[in-house]
């Protein structure tokens, strides 16, 4: 924006000059932030509205479920396994100090089910599928394919955004659960097979201490993250700037914004759910 020439009374005294300037800057920043939030909000309302208005594009939803879900399986399995193994190792050494290694099972399980499963799988999906979603929609924007949909009197959000959101909502809880299950097995490998906690204690105490609430909380988190990631990545791709640079910027921003948003939302969900 053009910087206004200061009025004369301001120019006389430079110390009074800096205050309106700083206020102007802060104001511009706030306005920018508000308009961004407004656009995000409107886009979300529009997209969520279309989730409930038929026709849903079932084929596209299945395609995106395959892309976001099935093709993330390996990465989720690997990260889940190693996260569980680290938890087993760390948990064992921490718990032995208090002589309570019998609680290794529930410690590993609760961390995975309520926290690490949903959060880490969301971060992995952001990196693997979120970036691709943003790039694909971004390229469609710069090659005018989104305009082509509009010209056909079709709503691009219905074709490009809604299937991703629905797929994200279905697939994220499954991936989060898978992460937790494989992680628990990873903890078992280390805790039981390597460090000698008895198998009965590992699983038995898990049954005593892990409640339905934990599983439900994990599920709520996964659902929220599924919506958050797919929505933000679609939003960033949909509003790509011009050219290859625009797409690369949108992709990077989509990943960074989604990852940060997952962690921030995780904190707030924790404070509400726990």
């Amino acid at each position, binding site marked *: 924006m*053009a910087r206004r020439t200061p009025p004369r009374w301001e120019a006389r005294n430079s110390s009074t000059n800096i205050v309106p300037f700083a206020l102007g800057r802060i104001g511009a920043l706030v306005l920018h932030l508000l308009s961004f939030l407004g656009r995000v909000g409107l886009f979300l309302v529009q997209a969520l509205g279309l989730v409930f208005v038929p026709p849903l594009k079932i084929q596209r939803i299945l395609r995106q479920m395959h892309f976001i879900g099935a093709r993330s399986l390996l990465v989720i399995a690997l990260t889940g396994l190693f996260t569980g193994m680290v938890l087993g190792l760390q948990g064992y050494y921490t718990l032995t100090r208090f002589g309570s290694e019998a609680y290794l099972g529930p410690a590993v399980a609760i961390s995975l089910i309520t926290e690490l499963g949903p959060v880490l799988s969301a971060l992995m999906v952001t990196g693997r599928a979120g970036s691709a979603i943003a790039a694909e929609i971004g390229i*469609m924007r710069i*090659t*005018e*394919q989104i*305009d*082509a949909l*509009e*010209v*056909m*009197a*079709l709503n691009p959000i219905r074709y490009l955004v809604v299937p991703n959101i629905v797929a994200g909502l279905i697939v994220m809880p499954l991936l989060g659960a898978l992460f937790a299950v494989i992680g628990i097995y990873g903890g078992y490998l280390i805790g039981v097979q390597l460090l000698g906690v008895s198998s009965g204690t590992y699983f038995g105490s898990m049954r005593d201490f892990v409640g339905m609430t934990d599983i439900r909380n994990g599920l709520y988190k996964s659902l929220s993250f599924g919506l958050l990631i797919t929505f933000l990545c679609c939003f960033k791709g949909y509003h790509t700037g011009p050219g290859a640079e625009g797409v690369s910027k949108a992709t990077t921003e989509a990943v960074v914004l989604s990852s940060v948003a997952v962690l921030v939302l995780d904190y707030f969900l924790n404070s509400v759910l726990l």
Partner: protein
Amino acid sequence: MAETPLIQVRTLHKRFGRQVVLHGLSLDIRRDEIMAVVGRSGSGKSVFLKHLIGLMRPDSGQVLVDGEDIHRGGSRTLARIRERFGMLFQGGALFDSLTVEDNIAFPLRERTRMSATQIQTVVAETLKNVGLEGVEGKLPDELSGGMRKRVALARALAMHPEIILFDEPTTGLDPILVRAIHRLIADTQARFHYTAVIVSHELPEIFDIATRVAMLHNGAILEVDTAAHFQHSSNPAVQQFIAGRLEGPLTPT
């Protein structure tokens, strides 16, 4: 009394930040004519075309289709008006994850209740109309530039729109293909009687097919006339533009 124009553009103004792109542009487009819009690069031709179909909203001014303001009645009205349009984008804008057949069938599947066999027949027929056969199963990436333009035209024609907008349909093609695409536009227009608005850089080739030519300069229409009259315009800027001379009222920036 003369017939009301199909599309009436009334004093469009559009700016991006500080850059004024359209500055009080007015133009009437008549039914069944081929209107060519020419002008220097960056004169706002593509922006103008996007305003005709509501892909961009003017800061002020109106676009009327059959007397109806396209932005007046919200998104449903706009969608209804858009059903009368087809558009051929600069790069074709074919959906790159779909085959040629699926690209052409896309609007038919989504907007009509035609059966799969009917759609297949229409696709084959439209491809034949644009001089392409046997490419149904190919992806857009496997086609040459000229073929891609033809497929894009086929996709626009498949719904039999009343109006087709062409955004530089021949950019990047060799001189023979330029004439071939022009011929194709003229032939299909004569057959299906659509109104065509063509944004083009191809001078003098465009004069062969255009009913009227409008020249855009500084965000407004500098001159609009029949193709024959336009070529012999007394306006020095028009003459300089047609001849591509460096000297004259238009500065080469």
